[in-house]
């Protein structure tokens, strides 16, 4: 039951997280900024519009946005309840989570290639490069959690972490959180990897892949992106919530606060950092991988 | 009983004073003369304790075991004094034309004199200290002090050589420090604590109880670290550059003793390692492998070498390998290694000093253009000829006999592969070095380059070491046999 609440609230509130980030950035810049619920207005507006399809595309282009969204929703369903119901999921489901995210990426990339546009092909290539670098970081990070908690499923992992584990392996867990956060920035096309506000096709990653989508399809894509951010953010928030301990309802009470914090943090990073040049972004992701490896090595040492 | 040990601190102090004195020198010529006189004075002073130790066999000890001179270090100190004296006596003549043309100004000469005595003092610290930490400080100091001796003349080449030398040797010295740390930490299980855990004598006394893993790790770090400074392959890259760019007297002390000083540190550690690992030859095998690798590397480079000073530098690499190999074989090999060290330093200093004069007169390092040296200058040409002949191991010279003894030690201990590789390396070096030597000495050349007239002293410093090299090959005086034997006994683990 608490798991269902978390999942549904995620579906409902995901666009709000983006709103928080946008407001944070506005506050740093000294502006009032768009309203918190702007994302919802945009979605409604897009859903009401008609749809234009390029003549060179095939059915792949038509089905990809819906399929990608379905896969992302499944990912959210896998992650959201894990903090409150330790029995949720199955051994090794964190690999399945990576598969789902990869599948969503596969649909987006194929539909981008399907348009035959050189810009979209470029974006697709960058997207695949980033994911090739970020997946090891994620996987090794999950390896640390498995190692520290001694459980193989997402639910078990978060259930198995407590203040005892945080005392003995807190450094390793913090490093995992840092690595996850860098991956979050990369996977959700935030600064310093990609600027969501830019409109220069040459430098964009995610946005450039969906240049040809419009109307309801674009609404699905936008919503999917918000949900993906929510999934990544909840991975980090869940990790820190385990340090507090407590009952499911306490978790549910703390969870929104944590998400708000992540939203503000993303906004802060976007405000204080400049976008890295495209050639340098892989170094940062490699750094995330290195941090994950460090966390793993430390966890083997702290828990002998 | 005269307290000869009291001389030891004086030995370190005197060069420091002379170094300060040369910093205050008035003219380049005066400073160079001070170099010559001062170095000989220090050598004569050092001769007393060296003779006492080598004749009596008992080590001299001072300052609660921190200063100690035993047979091994006394023998090294003898070589040090000979090489430094030869180099210093050579300096006034070598720099004479530069002083005249004013390319060596007073500031440069002051720096030269200060660093010359400074490095002499640092090397004496290395040899005299019983404390492995202080010994390390001495090696580090020699590195820093000798670096600027390479670029007495600032040219792109000498600056590059200096930078390479500084960078590689400072990293090597850092590694050697790690080795020293590990060695001192290996005293954990024993009753040796505090400052004592760095003293060579107390480490030797309790070698059986040391933590074997740490001793082994420490020795590997030391071989890499000090080996870099001793020029053992594959850490030898700085060596040919530094030797070929430095002025001849500096090249002579680099080849003749700086390398030996670092190798001495490895040799110091060897008996501790052997005693701690139960005398199974673990440490010796590392030295044998390093020695063979150096010999073969040097042989490969000597064959393709066209630059005279680089040829001599690679020859030093080869001879360091031979000394390491001999020490690694132990027993008769260690005796031969000590003998080889003395003969190599004699031959190499003479060869470098003669080569320096010849290169100055011809204005080139290229052996294809250095022809007819014997006719142009009988003294320096003969010095070069017999120096190189001696170094490649031609029969009547001492090096032939020491190499032969090492070969026999290898065969006697059943190390057939080692013996064959050693012989192979010797043959390649012999062929490679002689390829250019014959035209360099005899091929006629017009017009003959002009050499300044050699003084009596210069005849003396060429002829004396060469005849010593020849005499040592024919008959060895009894006191030297005893000295080599007692130094080899230290290597074999005798107290």
């Amino acid at each position, binding site marked *: 039951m608490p798991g269902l609440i978390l999942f549904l609230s995620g579906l409902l509130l995901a666009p709000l997280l983006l709103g928080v980030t946008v407001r944070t950035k506005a506050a740093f810049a000294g502006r009032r900024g768009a309203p918190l619920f702007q994302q919802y207005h945009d979605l409604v507006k897009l859903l009401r519009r008609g749809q234009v399809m390029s003549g060179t595309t095939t059915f792949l282009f038509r089905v990809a946005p819906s399929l990608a969204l379905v896969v992302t929703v499944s990912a959210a369903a896998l992650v959201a309840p894990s903090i409150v119901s330790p029995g949720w999921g199955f051994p090794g489901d964190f690999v399945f989570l990576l598969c789902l995210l990869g599948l969503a990426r596969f649909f987006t990339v194929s539909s981008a290639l399907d348009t035959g546009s050189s810009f979209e092909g470029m974006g697709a290539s960058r997207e695949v490069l980033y994911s090739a670098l970020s997946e090891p970081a994620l996987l090794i990070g999950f390896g640390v959690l498995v190692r520290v908690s001694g459980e193989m499923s997402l639910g078990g992992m978060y259930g198995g972490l407590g203040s005892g584990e945080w005392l003995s392996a807190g450094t390793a867990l913090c490093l995992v959180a840092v690595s996850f956060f860098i991956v979050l920035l990369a996977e959700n096309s935030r600064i310093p990897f990609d600027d969501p506000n830019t409109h220069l096709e040459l430098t964009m990653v995610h946005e450039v892949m969906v240049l040809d989508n419009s109307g309801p399809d674009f609404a699905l894509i936008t919503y999917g992106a918000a949900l993906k951010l929510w999934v990544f953010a909840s991975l980090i928030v869940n990790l820190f919530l385990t340090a507090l301990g407590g009952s499911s309802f306490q978790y549910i009470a703390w969870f929104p606060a944590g998400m708000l914090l992540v939203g503000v943090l993303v906004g802060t990073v976007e405000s204080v950092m400049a976008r890295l040049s495209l050639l340098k972004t892989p170094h940062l992701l*490699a750094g995330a991988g290195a941090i994950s490896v460090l966390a793993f090595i430390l966890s083997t040492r702290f828990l002998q | 009983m005269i307290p000869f040990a009291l001389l030891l601190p004086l030995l370190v102090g005197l060069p420091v004073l002379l170094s300060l004195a040369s910093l205050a020198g008035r003219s380049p010529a005066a400073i160079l003369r001070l170099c010559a006189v001062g170095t000989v004075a220090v050598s004569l002073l050092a001769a007393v304790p060296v003779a006492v130790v080598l004749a009596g066999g008992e080590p001299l000890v001072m300052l609660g075991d921190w200063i100690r001179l035993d047979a091994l270090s006394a023998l090294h100190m003898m070589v040090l004094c000979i090489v430094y004296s030869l180099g210093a006596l050579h300096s006034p003549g070598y720099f004479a034309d530069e002083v005249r043309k004013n390319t060596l100004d007073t500031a440069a000469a002051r720096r030269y004199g200060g660093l010359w005595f400074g490095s002499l003092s640092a090397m004496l610290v290395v040899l005299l200290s019983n404390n492995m930490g202080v010994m390390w400080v001495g090696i580090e100091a020699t590195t820093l002090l000798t670096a600027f001796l390479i670029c007495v003349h600032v040219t792109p080449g000498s600056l590059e050589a200096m930078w390479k030398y500084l960078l590689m040797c400072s990293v090597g010295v850092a590694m050697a*420090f790690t080795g020293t740390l590990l060695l001192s930490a290996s005293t954990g299980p024993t009753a040796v*604590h505090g400052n004592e855990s*760095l003293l060579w004598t107390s480490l030797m006394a309790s070698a059986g109880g040391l933590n074997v893993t740490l001793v082994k790790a420490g020795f590997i770090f030391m071989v890499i670290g000090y080996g870099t400074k001793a020029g053992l392959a594959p850490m030898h890259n700085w060596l040919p550059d530094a030797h070929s760019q430095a002025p001849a007297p500096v090249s002579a002390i680099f080849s003749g003793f700086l390398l030996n000083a670092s190798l001495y540190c490895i040799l110091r550690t060897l008996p501790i390692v052997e005693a701690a690992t139960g005398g199974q030859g673990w440490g010796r095998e590392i030295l044998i492998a390093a020695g063979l690798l150096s010999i073969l590397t040097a042989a490969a480079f000597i064959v393709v070498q066209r630059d005279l000073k680089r040829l001599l530098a690679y020859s030093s690499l080869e001879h360091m390998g031979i000394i390491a190999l001999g020490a690694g074989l132990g027993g008769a090999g260690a005796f031969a290694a000590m003998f080889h060290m003395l003969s190599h330093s004699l031959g190499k200093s003479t060869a470098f000093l003669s080569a320096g004069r010849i290169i100055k007169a011809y204005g080139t390092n290229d052996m294809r253009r250095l022809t007819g040296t014997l006719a142009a200058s009988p003294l320096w040409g003969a010095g070069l000829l017999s120096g190189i002949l001696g170094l490649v191991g031609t029969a009547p010279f001492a090096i032939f006999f020491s190499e032969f003894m090492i070969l026999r030690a290898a065969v006697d201990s059943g190390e057939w592969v080692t013996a064959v590789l050693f012989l192979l390396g010797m043959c390649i070096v012999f062929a490679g070095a002689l390829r250019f030597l014959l035209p360099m000495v005899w091929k006629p050349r017009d017009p003959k380059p002009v050499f300044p007239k050699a003084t009596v002293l210069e005849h003396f410093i060429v002829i004396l070491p060469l005849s010593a090299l020849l005499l040592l090959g024919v008959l060895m005086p009894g006191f030297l046999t005893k000295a080599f034997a007692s130094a080899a006994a230290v290597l074999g683990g005798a107290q």
Partner: protein
Amino acid sequence: MTAYLDIILVALILSDFILLGSGRLGNCIRIAAWQGIMVGLLPIATADAGFSFRIAALGIAVVVLKGFVFPRLLNRAIRESASSREVKPFVGYTTSLLAGVLALSASFWLDGRLSFPLHLESAIVVPVSLSMMFTGLFLVVARRTAVNQVIGYLVLENGIYALSLAIVRDVPFLVELGVLMDMFVAVFVMGIAIYRINMEFDHMDSNRLAKLRG
């Protein structure tokens, strides 16, 4: 005290990673300075036997030297030589990071094999110092500019210093001070050397000084 110590050690590794992945020379010098300060704080963090004057003096000396004096000298060397502020690596940044991770794993493996007698109460101090040594060596070899090679040497020295704190119970103060003095001299000499190399060539790229071969 152990948690404090572990945080410093982890921060040391992270600073290594930044050094391996950073492309700005000024940035590298700043990170190396921070690393020096953290290393200087190690003996203070480990003073379990009481906070003696000797430990405090050692810590302060290291912090001042590595945190303030060396960075200043290096910055002056860059300024006076008017050289490029880019790192110019032989080995790319991502590959360098990979090498750093490999060095880290190798150090932990080595530590498991060698079982050092520990003086400090931390499970990771020896492998961290070993990995700093490896990283320093890698930086010396894999970076082209002379200043960056000096930074690599500093990292190597930091690692050795941490190792000496970890495994040696009572090395005399004399030797510890000797290390510092020699380091100071080493970098100082290197600084002058850089200056003069630059005077001669108008750059201090030791790669371009590669005429001496064979």
